[in-house]
């Protein structure tokens, strides 16, 4: 049985269906990204996984237990960083650490916080208030806060959406490094196709909402470690990328009208590899 299992998840408001029949699973240590247009219910799925929202149908089972309500076992990095502006960077992380280990003394908490501040490269900015930090630094504090409680699973709600490209790249690299070091299980929402290929092992493609579904599960066939500077030289990179873009641009809207069949279980796709034989033939011409 997989570490996290989601079966027949649905969210409805009265007769209006946001999404239905969402089923997938995540293995331990796996990095899964979900991609889809606005309004398809990505954030709702993440909030249900976090326990902040309730589903209208279906179940979520993590580590053999049904998810009902929020838990320290699932750390969340919020879209808008959600730092408390009256606390310093260190105190924001300490707030989470204290919640996780209420019996720890001040020194233990501080040492633990410092470790994660160093991990995200914020050494020297511990005592600054969020208002004194740049957008990238704030998001780093949010990531450090989520990692510091050492949850079984990490939920990232479009964590780099508000960052400039340069900062985004740097923090993505950090995230790759931390995830590799800690074997963290991660579920991430993103709008960025390149980001999903760099970070994720599996990419869930969601069709347009309302009435959305998980249409496909794309396996990232580029082996780890994936490096932002060289990944685009991998022959698989553009095959995967084209597949994702093609889905978002052309195919994601076909599921609502029924032109494309809604799968009971989303098919697993390995772009480039399945049609490898066909590609070889093409190359001969």
């Amino acid at each position: 049985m997989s570490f996290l299992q989601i079966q027949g998840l649905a969210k409805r408001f009265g007769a209006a269906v946001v999404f239905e029949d969402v089923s997938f699973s995540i293995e331990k240590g796996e990095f899964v990204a979900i991609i889809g247009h606005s309004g398809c219910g990505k954030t709702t799925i993440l909030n249900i996984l976090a326990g902040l929202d309730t589903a209208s149908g279906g179940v979520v089972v993590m580590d053999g237990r049904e998810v009902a309500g929020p838990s320290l076992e699932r750390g969340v990095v919020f879209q808008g960083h959600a730092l408390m502006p009256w606390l310093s960077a260190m105190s924001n992380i300490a707030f989470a650490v204290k919640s996780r280990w209420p019996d720890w003394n001040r020194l233990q908490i501080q040492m633990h916080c410092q470790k994660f501040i160093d991990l995200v490269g914020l050494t020297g900015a511990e005592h600054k208030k969020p208002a004194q930090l740049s957008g990238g630094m704030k998001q780093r504090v949010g990531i450090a806060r989520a990692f510091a409680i050492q949850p079984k699973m990490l939920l990232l709600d479009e964590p780099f959406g508000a960052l400039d490209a340069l900062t985004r790249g740097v923090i993505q690299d950090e995230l790759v490094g931390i995830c590799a070091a800690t074997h963290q299980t991660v579920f991430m929402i993103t709008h960025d196709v390149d980001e999903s290929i760099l970070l994720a092992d599996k990419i869930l493609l969601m069709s347009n909402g309302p009435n959305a579904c998980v249409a496909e599960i794309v396996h990232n066939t580029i082996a780890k470690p994936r490096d932002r500077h060289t990944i685009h030289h991998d022959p698989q990179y553009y095959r995967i990328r084209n597949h994702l873009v093609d889905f978002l641009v052309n195919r994601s809207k076909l599921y609502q009208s029924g032109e494309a069949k809604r799968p009971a279980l989303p098919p697993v796709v390995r772009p480039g590899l399945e049609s490898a034989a066909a590609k070889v033939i093409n190359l001969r011409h």
Partner: protein
Amino acid sequence: MTESARLKSLVLSSLLLAVFVGAWHLATLPKAPAQSAPAGKSAEYAALVGAQAAAGQKSAFPTPADFGAKLVEHLKDPFYDKGANDKGIGVQLAYSIGRVLLGFLLAALVAVPLGFLIGMSPLVYRALDPFVQVLKPISPLAWMPLALFTLKDSNVSAVFVIFVCSIWPMLINTAFGVASVRREWLNVARTLEVSSLRKAFAVILPAAAPTIMTGMRISIGIAWLVIVAAEMLVGGTGIGYFVWNEWNNLSITNILSGILAIGLVGMALDFVFGRLQRAVTYVE
């Protein structure tokens, strides 16, 4: 503000004060005799109306110099106590400040927890809203007779009136501040499985603190306005009673001293609460 701009504003303020005092001085200059006494009868006239009046009418309103002398007198010994009707202005102010702080504190003890409850529960908010809406516009002094009748003590009644007038701004602001705490901070607390008590003190209270402090600042301002009127009614002690008592004594200089003291203390209270407000304010 730059140093020179500050200096300029200071000079302008001083100038305005000088103009005001000058105008006051001119307005209270002794007038020429209202009419020259009929010739030959001046001695008789002077004997009748008093030499001073015959020489020229001194204004009943004190001159700035009179007022200054009185102020110096008050400042020299502000805390004397020579019986019920003769206490130093400092003693009277202390009574008033004591009543205001006591009533304000009691109001805070009720308003902040109750505001929390109202802010956290839409049900309680809707249930209490009609009462708040009716009670809020009632002049605190309207409660005075009822307070005197039920509490049977003028001192306690004055404190009660302060309590009633300070409670509304704090209650409404606390409820508003608590209700508008950002959803995402509460979600952070939820995902961290923070207990309700810790959530209230570590998340909601600091998040709502600036709004609550604004309510407190408004409350203390209103309380200081109301105490003067309340003390005029209940009598006995306090700066309000002092002003009314000096009206009965027809001592305009003392009334003016009282008015100035009320203004200065009110400014000091507002300054303190302004500082407190700044201390809990955060930049988002």
